[in-house]
Protein backbone atom coordinates (compact mmCIF):
# COMPACT_ATOMS: atom_id res chain seq x y z
CA UNK A 1 0.00 0.00 0.00
CA UNK A 2 1.62 3.17 -1.16
CA UNK A 3 -0.16 5.28 1.40
CA UNK A 4 1.36 3.40 4.30
CA UNK A 5 4.85 3.74 2.83
CA UNK A 6 4.47 7.49 2.39
CA UNK A 7 3.19 8.01 5.93
CA UNK A 8 5.95 5.83 7.35
CA UNK A 9 8.59 7.71 5.40
CA UNK A 10 7.37 11.07 6.66
CA UNK A 11 7.29 9.79 10.22
CA UNK A 12 10.81 8.45 9.94
CA UNK A 13 12.16 11.71 8.52
CA UNK A 14 10.48 13.61 11.31
CA UNK A 15 12.05 11.40 13.97
CA UNK A 16 15.45 11.72 12.34
CA UNK A 17 15.27 15.48 12.30
CA UNK A 18 14.43 15.51 15.99
CA UNK A 19 17.83 14.03 16.67
CA UNK A 20 19.46 17.27 15.55
CA UNK A 21 18.28 18.90 18.75
CA UNK A 22 19.35 16.00 20.91
CA UNK A 23 22.83 15.80 19.43
CA UNK A 24 24.09 18.75 21.44
CA UNK A 25 23.85 17.00 24.76
CA UNK A 26 25.52 13.78 23.79
CA UNK A 27 29.30 13.79 24.36
CA UNK A 28 31.61 13.53 21.41
CA UNK A 29 32.85 10.20 20.17
CA UNK A 30 35.66 8.98 22.36
CA UNK A 31 35.48 11.74 24.92
CA UNK A 32 37.42 10.56 27.97
CA UNK A 33 35.45 12.78 30.30
CA UNK A 34 32.01 11.56 29.41
CA UNK A 35 29.79 10.31 32.17
CA UNK A 36 29.81 6.60 31.35
CA UNK A 37 33.56 6.57 31.62
CA UNK A 38 34.25 8.66 34.61
CA UNK A 39 31.89 10.29 36.98
CA UNK A 40 28.31 11.05 37.68
CA UNK A 41 27.86 14.41 39.28
CA UNK A 42 25.94 14.40 42.53
CA UNK A 43 25.87 17.92 43.98
CA UNK A 44 27.84 21.07 44.71
CA UNK A 45 28.83 22.64 48.01
CA UNK A 46 29.68 26.24 48.54
CA UNK A 47 33.23 26.47 49.81
CA UNK A 48 33.83 30.21 49.84
CA UNK A 49 36.04 31.53 52.57
CA UNK A 50 37.86 28.31 53.26
CA UNK A 51 40.50 28.64 50.65
CA UNK A 52 43.40 28.70 53.03
CA UNK A 53 42.69 25.25 54.33
CA UNK A 54 41.72 23.87 50.99
CA UNK A 55 44.97 24.81 49.34
CA UNK A 56 46.90 22.91 51.92
CA UNK A 57 44.97 19.87 50.95
CA UNK A 58 42.92 19.40 54.06
CA UNK A 59 39.16 19.47 54.24
CA UNK A 60 38.08 21.30 57.39
CA UNK A 61 35.69 19.55 59.75
CA UNK A 62 32.71 21.82 59.16
CA UNK A 63 32.92 21.18 55.46
CA UNK A 64 33.08 17.47 56.04
CA UNK A 65 29.95 17.69 58.18
CA UNK A 66 28.14 19.57 55.42
CA UNK A 67 29.26 16.99 52.92
CA UNK A 68 28.00 14.12 55.01
CA UNK A 69 24.66 15.82 55.52
CA UNK A 70 24.15 16.29 51.83
CA UNK A 71 25.22 12.74 51.06
CA UNK A 72 22.86 11.29 53.62
CA UNK A 73 20.02 13.42 52.28
CA UNK A 74 20.42 11.76 48.94
CA UNK A 75 20.60 8.29 50.38
CA UNK A 76 24.18 7.37 49.52
CA UNK A 77 26.56 5.56 51.91
CA UNK A 78 28.70 7.72 54.18
CA UNK A 79 32.40 7.94 53.51
CA UNK A 80 34.77 6.90 56.21
CA UNK A 81 37.80 8.87 55.13
CA UNK A 82 38.91 11.48 52.66
CA UNK A 83 42.22 11.21 50.90
CA UNK A 84 43.98 13.89 48.88
CA UNK A 85 44.73 12.74 45.40
CA UNK A 86 48.24 13.81 44.59
CA UNK A 87 49.33 14.91 41.19
CA UNK A 88 45.92 14.83 39.62
CA UNK A 89 44.71 17.84 37.79
CA UNK A 90 41.09 17.41 38.57
CA UNK A 91 38.26 17.07 36.13
CA UNK A 92 37.49 18.71 32.90
CA UNK A 93 38.30 22.30 32.30
CA UNK A 94 39.33 24.89 34.81
CA UNK A 95 37.30 27.25 36.91
CA UNK A 96 36.67 30.69 35.59
CA UNK A 97 39.61 32.94 36.23
CA UNK A 98 41.68 30.41 38.13
CA UNK A 99 44.46 30.27 35.62
CA UNK A 100 46.44 27.14 35.00
CA UNK A 101 47.22 26.06 38.53
CA UNK A 102 46.32 22.50 39.28
CA UNK A 103 43.00 22.24 41.00
CA UNK A 104 42.82 20.18 44.10
CA UNK A 105 41.09 16.85 44.09
CA UNK A 106 40.13 14.45 46.84
CA UNK A 107 38.86 10.94 46.92
CA UNK A 108 36.47 9.76 49.58
CA UNK A 109 36.70 6.17 50.63
CA UNK A 110 34.17 3.79 52.11
CA UNK A 111 34.78 0.82 54.34
CA UNK A 112 32.01 -1.76 54.23
CA UNK A 113 30.22 -2.56 57.46
CA UNK A 114 31.23 -6.19 57.80
CA UNK A 115 35.00 -6.30 57.73
CA UNK A 116 35.05 -10.05 58.00
CA UNK A 117 34.51 -10.50 54.33
CA UNK A 118 37.80 -11.39 52.81
CA UNK A 119 36.61 -11.55 49.29
CA UNK A 120 36.04 -7.90 48.73
CA UNK A 121 38.53 -5.14 49.32
CA UNK A 122 38.45 -3.46 52.66
CA UNK A 123 38.35 -0.01 51.15
CA UNK A 124 36.57 1.17 48.09
CA UNK A 125 36.86 4.45 46.26
CA UNK A 126 33.42 5.94 46.01
CA UNK A 127 33.30 9.73 45.78
CA UNK A 128 35.49 12.16 43.92
CA UNK A 129 35.56 15.74 45.15
CA UNK A 130 36.91 18.56 43.11
CA UNK A 131 37.23 22.27 43.59
CA UNK A 132 35.88 24.40 40.80
CA UNK A 133 35.97 28.11 41.43
CA UNK A 134 34.20 28.75 44.69
CA UNK A 135 32.42 25.47 44.88
CA UNK A 136 33.26 21.91 45.60
CA UNK A 137 31.79 19.50 43.16
CA UNK A 138 31.11 16.00 44.42
CA UNK A 139 31.05 13.18 41.92
CA UNK A 140 30.45 9.52 42.25
CA UNK A 141 32.78 7.09 40.53
CA UNK A 142 31.06 4.99 37.92
CA UNK A 143 30.96 1.38 39.13
CA UNK A 144 33.12 0.41 36.19
CA UNK A 145 36.08 2.04 37.88
CA UNK A 146 35.97 -0.50 40.64
CA UNK A 147 35.67 -3.38 38.21
CA UNK A 148 38.57 -2.14 36.13
CA UNK A 149 40.92 -1.40 38.97
CA UNK A 150 40.25 -4.12 41.51
CA UNK A 151 39.26 -6.83 39.08
CA UNK A 152 42.59 -8.33 38.04
CA UNK A 153 43.66 -8.56 41.68
CA UNK A 154 40.51 -10.19 42.97
CA UNK A 155 40.11 -12.57 40.08
CA UNK A 156 43.17 -13.82 38.27
CA UNK A 157 41.54 -13.27 34.90
CA UNK A 158 42.90 -10.84 32.30
CA UNK A 159 39.76 -10.43 30.23
CA UNK A 160 37.64 -7.70 31.77
CA UNK A 161 34.45 -8.58 29.96
CA UNK A 162 34.57 -12.20 31.08
CA UNK A 163 35.11 -11.54 34.73
CA UNK A 164 32.45 -8.86 34.84
CA UNK A 165 30.00 -11.23 33.15
CA UNK A 166 30.75 -14.33 35.15
CA UNK A 167 31.87 -12.99 38.53
CA UNK A 168 30.56 -9.56 39.41
CA UNK A 169 27.39 -9.92 37.37
CA UNK A 170 27.11 -13.68 37.49
CA UNK A 171 23.50 -13.64 38.60
CA UNK A 172 22.47 -11.77 35.47
CA UNK A 173 24.24 -14.35 33.35
CA UNK A 174 22.26 -17.10 35.04
CA UNK A 175 19.08 -15.31 34.01
CA UNK A 176 20.49 -14.93 30.51
CA UNK A 177 21.09 -18.65 30.19
CA UNK A 178 17.51 -19.20 31.28
CA UNK A 179 16.34 -16.82 28.56
CA UNK A 180 18.03 -18.74 25.80
CA UNK A 181 16.82 -22.01 27.29
CA UNK A 182 13.26 -20.66 27.19
CA UNK A 183 13.66 -19.64 23.55
CA UNK A 184 14.69 -23.16 22.60
CA UNK A 185 11.75 -24.64 24.46
CA UNK A 186 9.34 -22.15 22.87
CA UNK A 187 10.46 -22.95 19.32
CA UNK A 188 10.23 -26.63 20.09
CA UNK A 189 6.68 -26.28 21.40
CA UNK A 190 5.51 -24.24 18.42
CA UNK A 191 7.02 -26.47 15.75
CA UNK A 192 6.30 -29.85 17.15
CA UNK A 193 5.61 -32.68 14.77
CA UNK A 194 3.43 -35.65 15.43
CA UNK A 195 5.34 -38.29 13.52
CA UNK A 196 8.95 -39.31 13.68
CA UNK A 197 11.25 -37.98 11.04
CA UNK A 198 11.28 -40.27 8.01
CA UNK A 199 14.53 -42.08 7.53
CA UNK A 200 16.11 -42.37 4.13
CA UNK A 201 16.03 -45.89 2.83
Amino acid at each position, binding site marked *: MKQLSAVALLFVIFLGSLFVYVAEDIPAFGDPNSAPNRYVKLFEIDAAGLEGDLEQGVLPASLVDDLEDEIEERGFPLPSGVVRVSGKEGGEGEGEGEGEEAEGAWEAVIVPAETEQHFYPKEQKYYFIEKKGEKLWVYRYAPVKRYMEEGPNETNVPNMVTYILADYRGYD*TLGETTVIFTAGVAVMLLLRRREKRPREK
Partner: protein
Amino acid sequence: MNKRESSKGEESSKREAKGGDVIIEVVTRLMVPFIQLFALYVIIHGAGGPGGGFQGGVIFGSSFILYAIAFGIVKAGNRFSESANTVFFSTGVYIYAGVGLLCVILSYGAAQFLNYGFIPLTHHFEENRALGMDLVEIGIGITVMAVITSIFFNLAWKRENEGGKKAGEGGGEGRRQAERGEGRERREGRERREGRERREGRERREEVGG
Protein backbone atom coordinates in the same frame (compact mmCIF):
# COMPACT_ATOMS: atom_id res chain seq x y z
CA MET B 1 27.45 -54.48 -15.45
CA ASN B 2 28.21 -51.79 -17.98
CA LYS B 3 24.66 -50.59 -17.97
CA ARG B 4 24.66 -50.21 -14.17
CA GLU B 5 27.97 -48.35 -14.11
CA SER B 6 26.88 -45.90 -16.74
CA SER B 7 23.58 -45.41 -14.94
CA LYS B 8 25.51 -44.62 -11.76
CA GLY B 9 27.51 -41.97 -13.61
CA GLU B 10 24.34 -40.25 -14.80
CA GLU B 11 22.79 -40.52 -11.37
CA SER B 12 25.77 -38.86 -9.74
CA SER B 13 25.64 -36.02 -12.23
CA LYS B 14 21.93 -35.60 -11.54
CA ARG B 15 22.71 -35.56 -7.82
CA GLU B 16 25.30 -32.86 -8.39
CA ALA B 17 22.68 -30.78 -10.10
CA LYS B 18 20.49 -31.12 -7.04
CA GLY B 19 23.35 -29.95 -4.79
CA GLY B 20 25.10 -32.83 -3.09
CA ASP B 21 28.46 -31.83 -4.41
CA VAL B 22 31.38 -34.12 -3.78
CA ILE B 23 33.87 -31.37 -3.03
CA ILE B 24 31.59 -29.71 -0.49
CA GLU B 25 30.86 -33.00 1.20
CA VAL B 26 34.49 -33.99 1.58
CA VAL B 27 35.64 -30.61 2.79
CA THR B 28 32.79 -30.40 5.30
CA ARG B 29 33.56 -33.80 6.69
CA LEU B 30 37.15 -32.66 7.19
CA MET B 31 36.32 -29.32 8.71
CA VAL B 32 33.60 -30.11 11.24
CA PRO B 33 35.91 -31.58 13.93
CA PHE B 34 38.26 -28.62 13.68
CA ILE B 35 35.40 -26.18 14.04
CA GLN B 36 34.31 -27.96 17.18
CA LEU B 37 37.83 -27.92 18.55
CA PHE B 38 38.05 -24.20 17.90
CA ALA B 39 34.77 -23.72 19.69
CA LEU B 40 36.11 -25.53 22.74
CA TYR B 41 39.20 -23.34 22.63
CA VAL B 42 37.10 -20.17 22.53
CA ILE B 43 35.04 -21.31 25.52
CA ILE B 44 37.98 -22.24 27.73
CA HIS B 45 40.29 -19.41 26.74
CA GLY B 46 37.58 -16.84 27.26
CA ALA B 47 39.42 -15.84 30.39
CA GLY B 48 42.73 -15.02 28.73
CA GLY B 49 41.56 -13.35 25.58
CA PRO B 50 38.39 -12.54 23.70
CA GLY B 51 35.78 -15.24 23.94
CA GLY B 52 33.62 -16.87 26.52
CA GLY B 53 30.62 -19.10 26.90
CA PHE B 54 28.14 -17.57 24.48
CA GLN B 55 30.61 -17.10 21.66
CA GLY B 56 32.00 -20.63 21.86
CA GLY B 57 28.54 -22.13 22.09
CA VAL B 58 27.42 -20.44 18.90
CA ILE B 59 30.52 -21.63 17.03
CA PHE B 60 29.88 -25.17 18.23
CA GLY B 61 26.28 -25.00 17.04
CA SER B 62 27.33 -23.63 13.67
CA SER B 63 29.34 -26.78 13.00
CA PHE B 64 26.13 -28.80 13.06
CA ILE B 65 24.45 -26.25 10.82
CA LEU B 66 27.33 -26.52 8.34
CA TYR B 67 26.88 -30.27 8.24
CA ALA B 68 23.15 -29.87 7.59
CA ILE B 69 23.68 -27.38 4.81
CA ALA B 70 26.28 -29.47 3.02
CA PHE B 71 24.68 -32.89 3.30
CA GLY B 72 21.00 -32.11 3.23
CA ILE B 73 18.72 -31.91 6.18
CA VAL B 74 17.52 -35.50 5.98
CA LYS B 75 20.99 -36.99 6.32
CA ALA B 76 21.91 -34.57 9.08
CA GLY B 77 18.67 -35.38 10.85
CA ASN B 78 19.60 -39.05 10.86
CA ARG B 79 22.88 -38.36 12.58
CA PHE B 80 21.46 -35.95 15.10
CA SER B 81 19.08 -37.25 17.69
CA GLU B 82 16.61 -34.73 19.00
CA SER B 83 16.12 -36.40 22.35
CA ALA B 84 19.82 -36.26 23.18
CA ASN B 85 19.86 -32.60 22.28
CA THR B 86 17.00 -31.85 24.62
CA VAL B 87 19.03 -33.27 27.47
CA PHE B 88 21.78 -30.74 26.75
CA PHE B 89 19.32 -27.87 27.04
CA SER B 90 19.01 -28.30 30.73
CA THR B 91 22.50 -29.65 31.45
CA GLY B 92 24.06 -26.24 31.02
CA VAL B 93 21.63 -24.45 33.32
CA TYR B 94 22.01 -27.29 35.80
CA ILE B 95 25.78 -26.87 35.87
CA TYR B 96 25.49 -23.13 36.36
CA ALA B 97 22.98 -23.26 39.19
CA GLY B 98 24.75 -26.28 40.61
CA VAL B 99 28.01 -24.39 40.98
CA GLY B 100 26.16 -21.62 42.73
CA LEU B 101 24.48 -24.02 45.12
CA LEU B 102 27.80 -25.73 45.75
CA CYS B 103 29.23 -22.42 46.85
CA VAL B 104 26.38 -21.98 49.32
CA ILE B 105 26.95 -25.46 50.73
CA LEU B 106 30.72 -25.14 50.92
CA SER B 107 30.54 -21.85 52.73
CA TYR B 108 28.85 -23.60 55.64
CA GLY B 109 25.52 -21.91 55.23
CA ALA B 110 26.65 -18.31 54.87
CA ALA B 111 24.57 -17.22 51.94
CA GLN B 112 27.22 -16.81 49.27
CA PHE B 113 25.46 -17.87 46.10
CA LEU B 114 27.79 -17.80 43.10
CA ASN B 115 30.76 -16.65 45.14
CA TYR B 116 33.31 -18.98 43.59
CA GLY B 117 35.93 -18.23 46.20
CA PHE B 118 34.63 -21.03 48.38
CA ILE B 119 35.27 -23.92 46.02
CA PRO B 120 38.34 -25.55 47.56
CA LEU B 121 40.34 -26.35 44.45
CA THR B 122 43.39 -24.27 45.30
CA HIS B 123 44.58 -22.35 48.30
CA HIS B 124 43.85 -18.84 47.14
CA PHE B 125 40.51 -17.20 46.79
CA GLU B 126 41.47 -15.50 43.57
CA GLU B 127 42.49 -18.63 41.73
CA ASN B 128 39.34 -20.37 42.90
CA ARG B 129 37.33 -17.65 41.30
CA ALA B 130 39.06 -18.14 37.97
CA LEU B 131 38.36 -21.88 38.04
CA GLY B 132 34.75 -21.36 39.04
CA MET B 133 34.35 -19.01 36.10
CA ASP B 134 35.67 -21.66 33.71
CA LEU B 135 33.16 -24.20 34.98
CA VAL B 136 30.33 -21.77 34.53
CA GLU B 137 31.42 -20.87 31.00
CA ILE B 138 31.37 -24.54 30.01
CA GLY B 139 27.79 -24.77 31.23
CA ILE B 140 26.75 -21.74 29.22
CA GLY B 141 28.47 -23.13 26.12
CA ILE B 142 26.60 -26.43 26.31
CA THR B 143 23.21 -24.76 26.57
CA VAL B 144 23.81 -22.29 23.77
CA MET B 145 25.08 -25.04 21.47
CA ALA B 146 22.05 -27.18 22.04
CA VAL B 147 19.60 -24.34 21.61
CA ILE B 148 21.09 -22.98 18.39
CA THR B 149 21.18 -26.42 16.80
CA SER B 150 17.66 -27.26 17.90
CA ILE B 151 16.24 -23.98 16.62
CA PHE B 152 17.86 -24.51 13.22
CA PHE B 153 16.61 -28.05 12.81
CA ASN B 154 13.11 -27.17 13.92
CA LEU B 155 12.86 -24.23 11.54
CA ALA B 156 14.42 -25.91 8.52
CA TRP B 157 12.66 -29.26 8.58
CA LYS B 158 9.83 -29.48 6.10
CA ARG B 159 6.58 -29.87 7.90
CA GLU B 160 3.70 -32.11 6.96
CA ASN B 161 0.13 -31.12 7.43
CA GLU B 162 -1.84 -33.54 9.45
CA GLY B 163 -4.69 -35.36 7.77
CA GLY B 164 -7.06 -33.36 5.63
CA LYS B 165 -6.44 -29.91 7.04
CA LYS B 166 -6.92 -27.16 4.52
CA ALA B 167 -3.85 -25.07 3.91
CA GLY B 168 -5.37 -22.15 2.01
CA GLU B 169 -4.71 -21.29 -1.60
CA GLY B 170 -0.98 -20.91 -1.73
CA GLY B 171 -0.02 -24.01 0.17
CA GLY B 172 0.29 -26.28 -2.82
CA GLU B 173 1.91 -29.13 -0.94
CA GLY B 174 -0.83 -29.10 1.65
CA ARG B 175 -3.59 -29.16 -0.86
CA ARG B 176 -2.06 -32.00 -2.82
CA GLN B 177 -1.57 -33.99 0.31
CA ALA B 178 -5.02 -33.27 1.59
CA GLU B 179 -6.55 -34.37 -1.66
CA ARG B 180 -4.61 -37.53 -2.15
CA GLY B 181 -3.88 -38.25 1.49
CA GLU B 182 -0.32 -39.24 0.73
CA GLY B 183 2.59 -39.14 3.06
CA ARG B 184 5.87 -37.54 2.20
CA GLU B 185 7.70 -40.84 2.26
CA ARG B 186 5.47 -42.38 -0.31
CA ARG B 187 5.68 -39.37 -2.55
CA GLU B 188 9.46 -39.30 -2.38
CA GLY B 189 9.64 -43.01 -3.06
CA ARG B 190 7.33 -42.67 -5.98
CA GLU B 191 9.34 -39.78 -7.42
CA ARG B 192 12.56 -41.69 -7.05
CA ARG B 193 11.09 -44.71 -8.75
CA GLU B 194 9.69 -42.61 -11.56
CA GLY B 195 13.02 -40.84 -12.01
CA ARG B 196 14.87 -44.10 -12.21
CA GLU B 197 12.40 -45.50 -14.69
CA ARG B 198 12.65 -42.44 -16.86
CA ARG B 199 16.42 -42.59 -16.80
CA GLU B 200 16.50 -46.28 -17.63
CA GLY B 201 13.99 -45.74 -20.39
CA ARG B 202 16.19 -43.03 -21.86
CA GLU B 203 19.25 -45.28 -21.69
CA ARG B 204 17.50 -48.11 -23.46
CA ARG B 205 16.40 -45.73 -26.18
CA GLU B 206 19.99 -44.47 -26.54
CA GLU B 207 21.35 -48.00 -26.76
CA VAL B 208 18.88 -48.95 -29.38
CA GLY B 209 19.41 -45.72 -31.29
CA GLY B 210 23.22 -45.47 -30.92
